[in-house]
């Protein structure tokens, strides 16, 4: 049976239907999870998509993390089920403590929007099982606060535990260690700033996102 992907929707989320579309093109189903509902609708995997949850007020993800749906997402993640946060979703997952570190304003205060090349650093994650270490995938970014920052200890731990999933070939935002995506210690929760759902069709200039989301559906 095709897996069902739960796609979280906060007020201000704007990439949820891109994810639904991409997932559908890969043969899976989706269910939108309104942030006020704690029920995950029987989802086999959860995506926290991009946008500006709660207007990014205070800090991106700061208010979203208190939504009822996030408690359920945390419990789902604690069971080892696959969760991915994309862009604003990555920010939400760091604020919720499901991933270490924080995402700051881009170096140079530039809003960055364009295609980026990502190097696959680890294949032991729900987004990279169809890839090989060293592969370069083309996935677009679209963010103002994607500058990954963490303590030196956390950075050392991410490196030692092979938890850096993607790095930028050409760092667009000042992220420490060129980090574009990381996973948690249990390796079932991934956050990344680039948007794989926007690289799933030839018309969009890249279909590499299908490898990432396809990997995700494999473990859903």
């Amino acid at each position, binding site marked *: 049976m095709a897996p069902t992907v739960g796609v979280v929707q906060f007020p201000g989320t704007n990439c949820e239907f891109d994810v639904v579309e991409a997932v559908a093109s890969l043969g899976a189903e989706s269910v939108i999870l309104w942030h006020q509902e704690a029920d995950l609708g029987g989802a086999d995997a959860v995506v926290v998509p991009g946008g500006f949850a709660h207007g990014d007020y205070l800090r991106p993800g700061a208010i979203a993390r208190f939504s009822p749906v996030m408690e359920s997402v945390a419990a789902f993640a604690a069971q080892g089920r696959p969760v991915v946060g994309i862009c604003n979703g990555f920010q939400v997952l760091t604020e919720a403590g499901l991933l270490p570190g924080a995402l700051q304003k881009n170096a140079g*205060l530039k809003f960055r929007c364009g295609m980026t090349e990502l190097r696959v650093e680890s294949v032991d994650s729900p987004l990279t099982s169809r890839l090989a270490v060293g592969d370069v995938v083309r996935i677009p970014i679209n963010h103002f606060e994607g500058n990954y920052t963490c303590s030196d200890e956390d950075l050392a731990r991410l490196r030692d535990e092979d938890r850096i999933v993607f790095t930028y070939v050409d760092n667009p935002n000042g992220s420490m260690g060129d980090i574009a995506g990381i996973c948690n210690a249990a390796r079932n929760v991934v956050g990344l700033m680039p948007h794989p759902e926007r690289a799933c069709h030839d018309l969009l200039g890249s279909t590499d996102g299908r490898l990432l989301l396809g990997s995700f559906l494999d473990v859903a």
Partner: protein
Amino acid sequence: MGRTRVTGPVSPVAGRLWQSEPMTFSVQVDVQLRAGVADPQGSTIERSLPALGFEGVSDVRVGKSVRFAIDAADQAAAEATVDQLCQRFLTNPVIEDAQITIEPAS
């Protein structure tokens, strides 16, 4: 927090003696990036100043200020609550610090 409802014939004066009224405090929280955390806004402002004719300005750091009023039994209780509120919500302890000022509301 609701006040405990007192039943029975207790004089208002006696009731007030053992049950303190909550006080209102005004709070100012100054959120700053931790020392050592790069501040893209601060450095962009700093770099633009010479072009505007302002020389000799350094160490520009941008933060935010949050003000609110809070009811609490006393100053210590207000401080404890505000501390929690800052840790859990107003700051991201990974990159930010807060300076808290609390005083009885006038």
